[in-house]
């Protein structure tokens, strides 16, 4: 009688041990994923940043192919930065005026948007498309103003792609348009960050 009883107890012991081991493994993996996610930053230094201005006499557009973008997963911090002299125009005169007379890029070489995603970013990013509202501030021409925008983040098999667009009123940033140029330059500018693939930092 004793042998069969021992035979029954041993498998139970094994099952309990296996369950404990599985549980421990799951907890460990979950913790590791969380630690990894907490440290996770995504970045690009090749974001295409464009701006467009529509005025009665002329539309203006310029492109910068070296924008920087950083997203910190744990804090939800989002940063976009560009070097003002990196904007390329089709017309040289327009580019000169942009740098010298309007944004004064020698004095203020960078423009930066820094904000925080309003909702909690999941610790493990699932495949799919997310639209997150970001509240922060925009610094341009040495002046910082609050700005709320949305970023679109799409994740496909671990590849993270971000894009955003927002409008700016350049008058608010101390950029003066001479009255003679009012028909040619709009005070409202649309800024677009084209879809940009981010890398893990």
């Amino acid at each position, binding site marked *: 009688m004793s042998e069969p009883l021992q035979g029954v107890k041993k498998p139970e012991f094994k099952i309990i041990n296996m369950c404990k081991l599985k549980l421990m493994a799951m907890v460990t993996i979950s913790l590791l994923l969380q630690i990894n996610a907490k440290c996770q930053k995504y970045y690009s230094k090749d974001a295409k940043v464009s701006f467009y201005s529509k005025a009665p006499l002329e539309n203006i557009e310029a492109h910068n192919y070296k924008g920087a973008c950083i997203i910190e997963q744990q804090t939800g911090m989002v940063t976009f930065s*560009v070097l*003002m*002299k*990196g904007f390329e125009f089709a017309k040289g005169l327009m580019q000169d005026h942009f740098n010298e007379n309007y944004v004064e*890029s020698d004095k203020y070489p960078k423009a930066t948007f820094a904000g925080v995603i309003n909702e909690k970013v999941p610790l493990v990013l699932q495949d799919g498309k997310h639209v997150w509202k970001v509240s922060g501030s925009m610094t341009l021409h040495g002046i910082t103003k609050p700005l709320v925008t949305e970023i679109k983040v799409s994740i496909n098999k671990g590849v993270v792609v971000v894009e955003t667009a927002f409008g700016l009123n350049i008058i608010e940033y101390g950029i003066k348009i001479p009255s003679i140029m009012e028909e040619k330059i709009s005070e409202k500018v649309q800024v677009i960050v084209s879809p940009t693939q981010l890398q893990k930092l």
Partner: protein
Amino acid sequence: MLAYLGYQYFRPPADTVSINADIKETALNIGAAYLQDETGSDTKYLGKVVDISGKIAAIESKVSEGKTVYFEANDNSAPVAVLMTLGISKNESFSKGDSVLIRAFCTGYLMDVTFNRGALIMKY
């Protein structure tokens, strides 16, 4: 007079190859200068035409904006990246490991010290 104004209005940005460089410097020295003193380096390099010499560490290629050349850097030097101008045939004839002289416009320092409108001047 009208022709001159028209030319000025429609002229494209300056052609990098046809203008003289303001400064000649190695990529390592430019990167080191920016790492030590960004504001001072901006005063020296920002918006200037620079002849940059160094060894190519990497080349990244994108269809829309062309190639970006990364010069070799070290722990004491920020990376130097040059966005090469599309359509210059000479800009196609270099590869990783080449020692080159590239002329380009300095746009400042973000994650790299960045130059635009790069043109290959010579290979060593």
